[in-house]
């Protein structure tokens, strides 16, 4: 009886709901306001505008439906750039993940001089691409240092930058700069694993390989997804290396989406850019949502 009464009261209550005075409710919005204003004006509204424009011709401002999308997708430069970007991601991300994980694990196992090693691996993050790229040019030039070393074994010189090999140079330059970032993420994931798990496994007689497979790897699954997402999104910045090493019109093998966007931009090809940006945003959005879903699943296991 009492319960029913209480339930009724609660229902009445839910209808009114507890409302803090408006003075209190407005407080978080006051903190948010400056950021929200700038983000809206500089990013959000322009993005919506770009979305609208992607369905119009820039010149005549005439609605053309998916025309812009079709012309982008049919563009041979777009096909090349998209394929290259996909290839770069497919090659670079797994390499980056594996190398940074390996280094993080070794660093954990090799306790001494940890600070020095960590600093060493992070230093490239602080080096502007523009500073180091001069050196990459000297090393990978047709008459550069790498070919000089290879010549000692009588290997024929390769034009690393001007040929399809430039893809490898790009991967190298990207890994050199970015594996420290991922390593820090891995290290924090490793340090979050409860040491009692290892002790328990050791008492149960599990060898080091078994401990790695049964404890370290499964416990790093959530970290894996985080590292993967961030690496993926950071990988768009490889354009800096690509541009600095080989300029606006590099070898076909490293002609990336970013080059394409830049070239469209130079020609003020607004309809194409809008359509391209919308597609790219959509892709990134889907990737984020997908990975978040997997990430959440990884947590609940």
């Amino acid at each position, binding site marked *: 009886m009492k319960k029913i009464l209480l339930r009724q009261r609660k229902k009445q209550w839910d209808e009114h709901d507890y409302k803090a005075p408006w003075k209190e409710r407005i407080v978080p919005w006051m903190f948010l306001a400056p950021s929200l204003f700038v983000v809206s004006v500089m990013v959000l509204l322009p993005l919506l505008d*770009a979305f609208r424009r992607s369905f119009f011709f820039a010149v005549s401002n005439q609605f053309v439906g998916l025309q812009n999308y079709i012309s982008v997708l049919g563009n041979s430069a777009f096909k090349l750039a998209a394929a290259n970007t996909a290839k770069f991601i497919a090659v670079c991300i797994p390499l980056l993940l594996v190398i940074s994980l390996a280094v993080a694990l070794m660093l954990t196992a090799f306790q001494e001089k940890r600070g020095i090693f960590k600093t060493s691996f992070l230093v490239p993050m*602080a080096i502007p*691409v*523009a500073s180091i790229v001069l050196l990459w040019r000297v090393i990978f030039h047709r008459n550069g240092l790498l070919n*000089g070393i290879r010549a000692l074994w009588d290997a024929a010189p390769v034009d690393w930058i001007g040929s399809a090999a430039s893809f490898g140079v790009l991967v190298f330059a990207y890994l050199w700069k970015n594996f420290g970032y991922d390593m820090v993420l891995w290290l924090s994931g490793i340090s979050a694993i409860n040491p009692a798990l290892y002790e328990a496994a050791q008492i149960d007689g599990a060898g080091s390989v078994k401990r790695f497979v049964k404890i370290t790897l499964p416990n790093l699954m959530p970290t894996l997804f*985080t590292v993967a997402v961030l690496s993926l999104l950071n990988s768009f910045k490889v354009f800096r290396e690509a541009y600095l090493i080989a300029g606006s019109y590099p070898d076909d093998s490293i002609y990336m989406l970013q080059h394409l966007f830049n070239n469209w931009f130079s020609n003020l090809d607004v309809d194409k850019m809008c359509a391209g940006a919308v597609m790219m945003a959509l892709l990134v959005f889907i990737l984020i949502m997908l990975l978040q879903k997997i990430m959440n699943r990884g947590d609940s296991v």
Partner: protein
Amino acid sequence: MKKWFIGIILFLVSVFIWVPLWMLLSGTLMGAGELSWNLAPVLESGDGYATWPIIANYPTLQAYVELLLDTPQFFTVFWNSCKQVFPIILGHIVLGAPAAWAFARFEFRGKKVLYTLYIVLMLMPFQVTMVSSYLVLNKLGFIDNIWAIILPGAASTLPVFIMTSFFLTIPNAVTEAAAVDGASSFQTFLRLGLPLGAPGILSVAVLGFLEYWNAMEAPQAFLKDQTLWPLSLYMANITADNAGVSLIASLITLMPPLLIFLFGQKYLEQGIISSGMKD
């Protein structure tokens, strides 16, 4: 695996990192003559291969003198970089810290949606926003103006995300105590949020500096006027014919971020870790 073996691998990886940096440094000490002799095959596309001695054979500071005394335009470019990077970082803090405080300490309608929106925006590559930013900057008359770099940079949502995760570590009881003790929301933010969230703010500053000192995409797109170019772009366009000067320009370009890195490595790491934290 044996420990010494791991040590050797780690050592080799570090060498791999440090060698290019060392080469850069030693290169700056080579005289113009030595450098062009060493690099002749690269610069003149002749035969043979470039060489790079471990230590300059005839070390000289000549190139430094040349850059610092005879290239005044280099200082303009350096100053351009500063004028763009520091206001961006200031913007990150001034706009981002209160927003992060709102996300971390308050419950309000629409918070989850808004926060997700911020995360999505933070993860969008530059190319997605390039055209829309251009259009709005153009409308505001900011193209070929350093505001074209500063405003979109300051609107980044990554700092909000990082600072939110730092603010979340402040125990609730501390801000509740402040509320009971008579502090307004704003006073609580100013007197407790900012000092206690200082590591987060420093992380944002370090990450922001490294990122924007290095930024190329936005200046390239929005600054047609070369006199406004920052170091990163200027470097990309100095020709290799004066290799000595470009090497030193490279070295000077990397000094500020390197110094900030060395003093702020702790914050950089914390920033990276919190950028990887889930919401």
